[in-house]
């Protein structure tokens, strides 16, 4: 297990560079949009990675509510944080792309709105964890995560009617994509997922260390001889 981390790190590095090569050099230039379109290879994988991380957060939160397992809680925390980062990447690359292509930064379109709401929900999740003064932050956070996950389908339906400007889904949407573009996209997605996993893992280890540290301090207090009284502690 100890060995796995550097291996994953190296693999991610290699994948990311290869994917960048694919995206910037190998993939053909889009006819109407030109080179701006290459942002596609960062825009879409970051969204997909974020969605996956949020899904893991939901599952981990449910597990926490049932089992009260500290590991599940840490997993939920980590996936929410990293998911928000990837979601931000998508939300930033989108407007950068939109400005030259559509002529506007933002529009209230189905996909855009959904992403924004998701981002808002998980930021509020992180804010709650930061501001909690309770000894049971994990519990409150898990409850909020469940509420957030329940909200997503409702958001989806509520913006169903919005006039859409955004391209239809690649998968199952009937759009035809050049196979080389497909290739570059999938490689990028794989690289992003590995990268996401890597960041999550480090963050997870950091969280484990932090909690261990707190526990050690408290344990030392437990072992303290009785004579050093609580009244002066």
């Amino acid at each position, binding site marked *: 297990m100890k060995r796995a981390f550097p291996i994953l790190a190296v693999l991610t590095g290699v994948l990311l560079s290869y994917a960048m090569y694919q995206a910037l050099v190998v993939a053909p230039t889009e006819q109407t949009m030109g080179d701006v379109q290459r942002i596609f290879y960062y825009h879409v994988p970051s969204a997909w990675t974020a969605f996956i991380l949020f899904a893991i957060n939901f599952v981990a939160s449910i597990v926490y509510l049932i089992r009260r397992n500290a590991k599940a809680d840490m997993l939920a925390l980590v996936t929410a944080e990293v998911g928000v980062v990837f979601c931000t990447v998508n939300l930033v690359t989108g407007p950068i792309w939109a400005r030259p292509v559509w002529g506007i930064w933002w529009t209230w379109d189905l996909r855009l709105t959904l992403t924004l709401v998701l981002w808002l929900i998980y930021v509020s999740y992180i804010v709650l964890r930061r501001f909690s003064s309770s*000894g*049971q932050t994990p519990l409150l956070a898990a409850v909020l995560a469940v509420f957030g996950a329940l909200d997503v389908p409702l958001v989806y339906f509520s913006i169903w009617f919005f006039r859409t400007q955004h391209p239809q889904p690649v998968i199952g949407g009937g759009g035809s994509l050049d196979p080389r573009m497909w290739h570059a996209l999938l490689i990028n997605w794989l690289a992003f997922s590995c990268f996401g996993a890597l960041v999550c893992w480090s963050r997870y280890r950091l969280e484990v260390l932090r909690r261990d540290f*707190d526990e050690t*301090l*408290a344990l030392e*207090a*437990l072992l*303290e001889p*009785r004579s*050093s*009284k*609580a*009244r002066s*502690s």
Partner: protein
Amino acid sequence: MSAAVIVTDLVKQFGRFAALRGVSTEFAAGRLYAILGDNGAGKTTLLRALAGLTPLTRGSISMLGTTDLRSVCGQLGYMAHPSLLYDEMSGMENLRYFARLYEISDRGQNDEDRCADVIRAVKLDPSLTRPVGQYSQGMRQRMSLARALLNDPKILLLDEPFSNVDLRSAREMVTLLTGLRDAGKTIFVVTHQAALLEGAADEFVWMEAGQIVSRTSDLAATTETK
């Protein structure tokens, strides 16, 4: 004599500070325990743990033969430092509301009567219409005790019931408590006025720095060692 409360290896941490540091002990049913100790020894924390109000870091509590505290909380009376009463309502109105929470009328006694009875038991006047927020500190303290007695609990957890109460009334409270004990209740009284319970309490439990350091039935003996 059966054990009413069994506590094993109780640890309660607030962040990095441990308020309870491994408390393991048993309390027999039908006895009056005085819990004594310096400020910050962990008495209130222990009581809150017994009342099921605070999630434990480690350890377990078994009460009236079950570890599911939720299922026995109808048998519990809890009195805390704050009054646990609505300042804007009169004493009767407060108790009437709590009587509904405990569904006392289902047990065959009329709400109204029961409330008036407990208020009289703590030597207050049930017809007082003043809101509790305007009571004097000692009156509020007694009303708070009345609230804890309301559901005729098997186990009573009282956190400093005598503080702010005048001496004569405190003595009357002790009489009331010994009466309840003789009727088979298990009573825990946290107090700094141990002398009041001399002769009344069956056992004195001393706490220090989150642990129980001694249990004795003779107050004089322990105050010496202190």
